[in-house]
C-alpha cells in the first residue's frame, strides 16, 4: 500500500512518540515575525534556554509594518518596539533577519517559498495560522501558538498530533476567469469552515495539477479557513522548476538530488486516504463572500442566500451575518456598493495576482467613491511588478501602490484600517467581523481580478466581463 506525502514527511521527521500520544516532530524550517515571537523569546530567557538551530530559523517583519512609510523608527511607538524586539532577538541569536530594504523582506508566507527556503518534503512551522500556505510547494507546514514557538526555538522540534488526510480532488478544467482563490472559497463553501478539524487537506486532481505553484500557495493558504491546520499539493515538475535559481534553493551541484527527494515525497498513486471528496472544477465560478466567515460564499452571479433556505444548523449564523453585513437575502450579490478595494495579503499578493488584476485595470480608472490600495507581498514582488510596468498600471488606474510590503489591511495592525462600516472588496482571507480594523467594518473576499473589477465599478461585478 502506498503512502501519502503527509505520512512520508511525518515519518522522516518523527523524533519519538511523546507520553501523551503526540509526536515529537523535527521542524526543518522555522519562520518568526514580530507579533508572536517576542513573548516566546521572553519565555526562553525566563527558563535559561537558548535557540537550538538559528541556522534553520528565519525572521521577517510584516504584520505591524506601515506599508506607506517604512522609515524607522515607525510613527507608532508600539509597532517600533515590536520591530526592535524582533531585530534585537534575531541579532543576539544569530538568526537571519530579512529587514525592509534588504531586497528579501515581505509577508512571511510569501517570502518563504519565494526565497527558496520553504522546500518540498520539509516540515515548516511559524506562529501564524496561514503557515499552511507553504504546503503549496509540497511541505508539511502548520501554524503554532507562541508557547510552541518557544518550543521550536528551544529544541527545533514541536509536539504535534498527526492529522488524518482528506484528499480534496478538484477534477476537470476550471472555467476561464476562475482563479485559485475561487477554488479555495468554493471548497470551503462546499465542505464547511469546520470540516477540516483533525485533517490535513491534500489538494489533488487535474485542476490542481495544472495550477502554477503560486496558485497552489493561494489554495493551500485557505486550508485553515476550512478548519484544516495544514494543506498541501504534491510536488511535481512544476514545483522543481519553481525552485530553480532561488536564493536558498539547493546549489546547482546538488539540485537534481534534491529534486529527486522532493518528487519522492509526493503521495503514491495507491496511497490510502482517511477521507476523500471530489469537487468538479466546472462548477466553480468567480466567488464572493456575503457573510462573516469564508464559507459564506457564492458565485458572483448568484443571489445572497435566504437564511430560511439554508440547513437549520446554518440559519441563525446566516441571519446574524446578513445583519452585520447589511445585505439582503434573495438579492444578487452583484451590484453591492464597495468603499475600499484591497489587493494584498499572504493569500493574493504574488506577482501572478498583480498580473491578473492588471489585465482588468489597464486603461480603466478606480471609481471615485472607492479607495483602492495595492500592497505587494514582498520586495521581490514589488521590484518584479516595477520591471513589468504593473505598478504603473495600478497607479494610473488610481490605486495607492505601496512601496513597502506587509500584511496591511488584511489584519490592520498597522495604519491601514477600515473606518466605520466601510465595505471592502478584499483579496485577503478572513471576513470576520472587525478583521480589517474597524469593529463594524465589512469584508467581501474575492480573487484579484474580481477586486480590480469592483474597484473600477464601485460595486461587485463579474470580472469575466472585463477581460
Amino acid at each position: 500500500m502506498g503512502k501519502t506525502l503527509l505520512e512520508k514527511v511525518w515519518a522522516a521527521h518523527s523524533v519519538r512518540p511523546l507520553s501523551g500520544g503526540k509526536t515529537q516532530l523535527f521542524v526543518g524550517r522555522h519562520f518568526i515575525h514580530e507579533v508572536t515571537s517576542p513573548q516566546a523569546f521572553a519565555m526562553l530567557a525566563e527558563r535559561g534556554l537558548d535557540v537550538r538551530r538559528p541556522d534553520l530559523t528565519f525572521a521577517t517583519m510584516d504584520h505591524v509594518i506601515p506599508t506607506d512609510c517604512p522609515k524607522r523608527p515607525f510613527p507608532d511607538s508600539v509597532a517600533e518596539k515590536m520591530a526592535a524586539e524582533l531585530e534585537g532577538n534575531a541579532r543576539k541569536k544569530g538568526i537571519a533577519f530579512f529587514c525592509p530594504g534588504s531586497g528579501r523582506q515581505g509577508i512571511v508566507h510569501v517570502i518563504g517559498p519565494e526565497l527558496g527556503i520553504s522546500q518540498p518534503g520539509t516540515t515548516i512551522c511559524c506562529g501564524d495560522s496561514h503557515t499552511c500556505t507553504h504546503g503549496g510547494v509540497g511541505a508539511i507546514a502548520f501554524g503554532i501558538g507562541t508557547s510552541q514557538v518557544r518550543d521550536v526555538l528551544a529544541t527545533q522540534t514541536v509536539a504535534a498530533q498527526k492529522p488524518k488526510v482528506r484528499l480534496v480532488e478538484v477534477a476537470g478544467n476550471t472555467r476561464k476567469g476562475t482563479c485559485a482563490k475561487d477554488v479555495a472559497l468554493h471548497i470551503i463553501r462546499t465542505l464547511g469552515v469546520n470540516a477540516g478539524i483533525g485533517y490535513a487537506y491534500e489538494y489533488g486532481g487535474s485542476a490542481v495539477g495544472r495550477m502554477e505553484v503560486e496558485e497552489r500557495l493561494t489554495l493551500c493558504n485557505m486550508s485553515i479557513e476550512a478548519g484544516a491546520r495544514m494543506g498541501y499539493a504534491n510536488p511535481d515538475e512544476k514545483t522543481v522548476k519553481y525552485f530553480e535559481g532561488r536564493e536558498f534553493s539547493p546549489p546547482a551541484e546538488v539540485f537534481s538530488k534534491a529534486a529527486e527527494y522532493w518528487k519522492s515525497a509526493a503521495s503514491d498513486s495507491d496511497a490510502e486516504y482517511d477521507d476523500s471528496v471530489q469537487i468538479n472544477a466546472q462548477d466553480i465560478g468567480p466567488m464572493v463572500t456575503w457573510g462573516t466567515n469564508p464559507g459564506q460564499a457564492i458565485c458572483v452571479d448568484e443571489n445572497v442566500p435566504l437564511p430560511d433556505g439554508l440547513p437549520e444548523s446554518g440559519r441563525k449564523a446566516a441571519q446574524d451575518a446578513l445583519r452585520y453585513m447589511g445585505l439582503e437575502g434573495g438579492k444578487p450579490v452583484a451590484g453591492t456598493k464597495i468603499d475600499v478595494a484591497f489587493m494584498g495579503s499572504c493569500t493574493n499578493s504574488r506577482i501572478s495576482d498583480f498580473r491578473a488584476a492588471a489585465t482588468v485595470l489597464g486603461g480603466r480608472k478606480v471609481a471615485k467613491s472607492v479607495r483602492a490600495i495595492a500592497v505587494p507581498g514582498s520586495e521581490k514582488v514589488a521590484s518584479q511588478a516595477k520591471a513589468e510596468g504593473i505598478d504603473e498600471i495600478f497607479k494610473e488606474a488610481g490605486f495607492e501602490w505601496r512601496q513597502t510590503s506587509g500584511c496591511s489591511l488584511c489584519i490592520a495592525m498597522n495604519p491601514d484600517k477600515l473606518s466605520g462600516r466601510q465595505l471592502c472588496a478584499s483579496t485577503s482571507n478572513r471576513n470576520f467581523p472587525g478583521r480589517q480594523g474597524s469593529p463594524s467594518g465589512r469584508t467581501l473576499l474575492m480573487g484579484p481580478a474580481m477586486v480590480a473589477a469592483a474597484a473600477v465599478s464601485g460595486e461587485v461585478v463579474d470580472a469575466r466581463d472585463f477581460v
Partner: protein
Amino acid sequence: MSMDANRTPKNRQGDADCVVTEKFIRTVEGRCIPVRGDDIDTDRIIPARFLTSITFEGLGKLAFFDERFDQSPNRREHPFNDLRFCGASIMVVGRNFGCGSSREHAPQALMRNGTRAIVGESFAAIFADNCCSIGIPTLCLQKEDVCWMMDAAEKNPGATAKISIQNREIEFCNRTLPFQEDESHRRAFLDGRWDAVYELLEGQKDADRVAAGLPYVSLGRKPG
C-alpha cells in the same frame, strides 16, 4: 496555594491577570458561563489591535472587547458583561470555537480573564493546542449536552460544575456528562506535562539524529 483558590479566579471585570500556576490539572471546579454561537474566531476573542504588545500582560480585561463594548464604549449585552457570571471559570461554547488566527493571545486573554476550562461542541486545532500549552483543558460534549449545559448555566448561574479529567466527566446540576478530550492533552494535564518544552528537551539527542538523517537540512546555502 490550594487548588480551589486557583480555581476561583476573580477576574471577570478587569482585575489583574490571573494565570494557571498548577502543574497537575486533574479536576476543575467552577461556575459556568455560556458563550453561544458557532465558529467564534480568535479575532472576536481578542481583536488584532490588542496584539500590539511584546507581552501577554493585561489581555484579560480585553477578552471579547468588541462584542462587549460599542464604540462609545458602552456595554453591550454579552455573557462576559453579565454580573451573574462574574467569577465563572468554565466557559461553555458551540462548534469550532477558536477558529481563525493562531494567536495565543486568545486563550491567554480568556485565561487571564479567569477561564480555567472550556467545554464545547468542537474546537479549532491550533486554539486547542494553545489552550493545552497554558493549562486550559478544552473538552468536547455532544451538541445536545452543550445546549443543555448552556441552558442550565443560564438558569443556575450560581451552580458549580465539577470536571474530572481522569474520569472524563462533568458533574453539573445533578447530571453527569461524559466528554471527549484529546488524549495527548488529557495525559499532559494528568502527568503535569502540559508545558511541553521540558519533555521535548529530553528528546534532543534523538532530534539531532533525525536532523542529521534528513536529505535536505544540509542542502542549500547557509543564511548570511
